[in-house]
C-alpha cells in the first residue's frame, strides 16, 4: 500500500515532469488539433477555441493598412466570404496582431469604426496586440487564413487564394482556398489543398 508520503513524493516527481512539458506550445499543423487561443474582441467580449467546439472557425489575420488586405476588402471579396460562411454557422474571427505603436494596431473604438467602414461581416475582431494568438498560430502575413473544423482540428492553413498579388482584379477567377476547405470539410470530404504559403504583408508583432 502506498503511504501518503510516498504519494506526495510521487506527486512531486510527476508534477515536475508534467510542468516541464506543460509549457509546450504545439506548432500549428494541419490535421492536428488547432492551437488554443483566447482573446478579447473589439467589444470587450472574450473568445476562445473551446467555446466554439462543434462549430467551424475561420481565423483571418487583419491589417487594414496592408495593400493585400485592401485588395480583398476593396473588392468586397472578404465581406462576401464572411457573409456566406457566417450564414452557414461558421465563426469568423478577424485577428489584429499588430503590436501597440506598430502600423495596423487597433484599439476597440477604432476597430469597430474600421469594421463598420469596411462593412466587415466577421463574427468578431480579436485585438491581439500582444501577439499571443498570432504567435500560437505562427501567423506570418495579413491576410493569413486558418480553418478549424467542428472537432477543433486545423484543416487549412495558408493563403486566402492562389493569386498572391495586390491587384483587385485578381480576385476574379482566383481559387479561394478557404471556401474550398470549408466546403469539403463540411461535406465530410478531405480538404484537397491543406497547406499553402500565405501571402501578404508581414504581421507587425
Amino acid at each position, binding site marked *: 500500500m502506498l503511504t501518503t*508520503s510516498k504519494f506526495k513524493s510521487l506527486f*512531486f516527481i510527476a508534477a515536475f515532469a508534467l510542468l516541464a512539458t506543460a509549457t509546450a*506550445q504545439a506548432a500549428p*499543423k494541419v490535421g492536428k488539433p488547432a492551437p488554443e487561443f483566447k482573446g478579447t474582441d473589439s467589444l470587450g467580449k472574450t473568445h476562445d477555441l473551446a467555446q466554439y467546439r462543434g462549430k467551424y472557425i475561420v481565423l483571418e489575420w487583419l491589417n487594414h493598412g*496592408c495593400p493585400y488586405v485592401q485588395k480583398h476588402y476593396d473588392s468586397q471579396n472578404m465581406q462576401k466570404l464572411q457573409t456566406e460562411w457566417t450564414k452557414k454557422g461558421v465563426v469568423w474571427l478577424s485577428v489584429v496582431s499588430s503590436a501597440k505603436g506598430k502600423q495596423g494596431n487597433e484599439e476597440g473604438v477604432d476597430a469597430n469604426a474600421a469594421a463598420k467602414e469596411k462593412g466587415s461581416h466577421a463574427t468578431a475582431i480579436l485585438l491581439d496586440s500582444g501577439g499571443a494568438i498570432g504567435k500560437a498560430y505562427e501567423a506570418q502575413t495579413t491576410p493569413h487564413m486558418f480553418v478549424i473544423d467542428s472537432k477543433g482540428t486545423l484543416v487549412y492553413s495558408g493563403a486566402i487564394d492562389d493569386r498572391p498579388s*495586390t491587384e483587385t482584379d485578381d480576385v476574379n477567377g482566383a481559387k479561394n482556398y478557404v471556401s474550398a476547405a470549408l466546403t469539403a470539410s463540411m461535406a465530410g470530404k478531405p480538404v484537397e489543398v491543406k497547406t499553402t*504559403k500565405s501571402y501578404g504583408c508581414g504581421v507587425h508583432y
Partner: protein
Amino acid sequence: MHPFSPKLLGPALALFSVLLVPLPARANPVQSDHLQVALVSPATSVVRGQPVTVGVHFELEAGWHLYWKNPGDSGEAPRFKWILPEGLTAGPIVWPAPRALPMGPLLNYGYEKELLLPVTIQIPAELAPEWNEGDVLPITVAARWLVCHETCVPGQADLKITLPVRTSLTPANEIHTALFKLAEQEQPKRIAARVIQETDHFIVDLNLDPAALVDKPLVQFFPYESLLISHSAKQAIEFRKDGISLQLKVDNARDEPAPKLAGLIVIDGPSPRRTFDFDETIVRGKPQAAVATTKPAAAAPSKTAPGFLMVLLLAFAGGLILNLMPCVFPVLSLKILGVVRHTHDAKAARRDGWAYTLGVLVSFWSLAGALLILRAGSARLGWGFQLQSPGFIAILAVLMTLVALNLLGVFEIGIGLTRLGSFGGITPGGSAPTPRKALLSSFVTGALAVIVATPCTAPFMGPAIGFALTQNTVAAMAIFTSVALGMASPYALLGYFPRVLAAMPRPGRWMEHLRQVLAFPMFGTALWLVAVYSQLTDSMTAFKVLAALLVLALGAWIYGRYQQSDRKSFLVMLLALGVSATGIVFAIQTPDPSTLVRNTNAGDGTWEAWSSERVNALRAQGRPVFVNFTAAWCISCKANEVTVFQTDEIRQAFSSLNVATLKGDWTQQDDTIAAELESHGRAGVPLYLYYAPGSKGPPTALPSVLTKGIVLAALEGK
C-alpha cells in the same frame, strides 16, 4: 486606391515624359513611392541574332526594401510583363543574392538600397523585315513590385528603352556595363550537396573551397521556395576543413514531406559575396546516418564546437559547481540533513547518495527532454525556459512554501508524524525512518535540487548546454547526464569516504533547530520566485499570488492542528484541504493575459534595449559596444550587476571610454535573444559581449562570473 490619387500622378507624368521626349538608350527614371526605377541596358544597339541584356534598376529610399523571388515569411517579389516587338522573347529574371531582413519574429529575403534585375532578350536572326538598320526597337516592361518598410506599398510602372538596330555592335554604355558586371558576379555556382532529413531538421553537407571559409565567414542559406524550411529559425553551421554542414529547421506547416531542397548559399566574406546553389533530392535518413555526416567537425574541433569529451568534462565540472550556486543552496540544506543522519552508517549513506543521484538524473532528463521536444517543435527556448512561464514559477513558489511550512513543523506528512524533514531523513524522535522512505526522500531531494538550480547556469554550463542543444538527441542527453552526474557526485561519493563521514557531528537535538532554520532559505526562495513572477506580470498579480500563498499557509496550519488533535474530525480535514486547495488554485491560475508584460526587453537609464540592428549601427559609428544579456530570474546576472556594473569604477570606465551599453533582457521568452545567445554558442544567460571600437570580427565573450578587473581588462583590449 483611387484612380486619380496623387500617388499615381508621379509615375504617370514620368511615363508621359518617356513617351514624349526623344529617347536615349535609357528610360528616364520613374519616381515612385519610396523608390526610383528605370529600365537600363549596357548595350547601345541591337544586332540581329544576338541576345541583348536589359535590366530593371531600382534605387530605394533608406530603410525600404524589395523582395527576392522567394520573399520569405511575407512580401512579394517584383513581377515583369514584357511588351516586345514580334519575334523577340524575354528570358527569366536573373536574381542577385538577397539578404535576410528580419521583421520581429518573421524573416524576409530581399534587397535594400539598390537592385538590378537583369533579363536577357533574344533577338532573332530573322527579325521582321520592317525593322531596318537605324530603326529603333522599343523594349517595354510593365513592372509591378511591393516596397516595404514597416508598411508596404505596391507600385507599378511601364518602363521603356529603345535600341537602334545595327549590323555590328556599338560601344557599350560603361556605367551600365559596370552595374551588370556586379550583378553577374553574384550569380551562384551550382555545386553538389547531400541533404538528409532528420525528422524536423535538414542536414545539408557541402564541400567548398577552403579559401572561401577562412575566418569562418557568415554563411546563409536561402531556399528557392517557401514551405521547406522555417525561414526565421536559426541556421546552425559547422565548419569543416573543406566544407560546411548546415542544420536547417523544417517548416512544420508543411503537410507532406518535401521531395527536394534547392536554394542559395551565400558566403559573406570580403566583397564580393560568394554564392553557390544546389538542388538535391532529400534523403530521409535515420538520425545515425546524419550523425555520421556531421561528425567530422567533432574530429576537427573548432572554436564553436569543442571536442565532445571536453564538453562532457566541462558539463561535469559545471554540474559540480552548481552545488555552490545561491539558487540551489536552500534545497542543498535539506541534503545536509540527510548526510548528517548517516554520519556513522556508510552503507546507508551510499544507498542514499545513489538515490539522490537518481533523483538528479531523472529530473535533469525530464527537463532536458522537455526542452528538446519543445525545440523540436517550433519554440525557440534555451536553458532556464521553465522560469519564463509565470504558471510554472507560481507552482514552484507554492511548493517552496509548503516545504518551508513543513520544515517549521506546521504540518506533517503521512501517517507516522514524519515531516518533509524526512527529505532529510529525520523524525522528531530522532529515529531514522524506514530505509525505503529515506531512499524516496533522497530521490525527491535530488529532483527538487535540479529544478531550483537551473536558473543558475553555472559558468562552465553555458557553453556545454549551448553545445548540447546544437547536437543530436543522443549527444545532447549525454551532456545533460554529465551535468547531472557532476551535480550529484559529492553526495554519491560521500559514502565511500568513511573518514569524511566520521568528521561530521553526531545527530542530536540540534538537528531539530537546524531544520527549522532551514525553513527560512525556503521562504526566501519562494519570495524570490514571486519577485520573478512580478517581472513577468504586474505587481498586483504578483500580490495575488502572495495572498494565495497566505491562504495556503492557513490551510496547512489547520491541517497541522487536525493531525495533532485527538478527536479527528473529518470536517476539519475537509476544511484544511479546502482552504489549501483554494490557495493553490488561486496561486497557480494563469494570469490574465492583459497583465502579462509584453516585452521585458526594454532599456533603462543606464542600459539601452539590445537589438542586433542597434549594435550594428553603433559599431558603424565606431563606438565600443558592451552587451549584457540578463534575466530577472538569473541570480548570477544579478550578482554581476551589483558587484560590477553598478560600481562607480565601471560606470566611469564606460562613460570615459564612451562605451555604448546595451541590455538584452531574457526574463520572457524572446526568439531574437535566444537566437543571438545560440549564435554565440550559449543556451542561457548571462552572456557578456564586448565589441572593441573599429573591430570587424565577432565580439569578445566575457566569463559568466565577472569581476571589475575582467571588465576593465576587456575594455582596455587586454
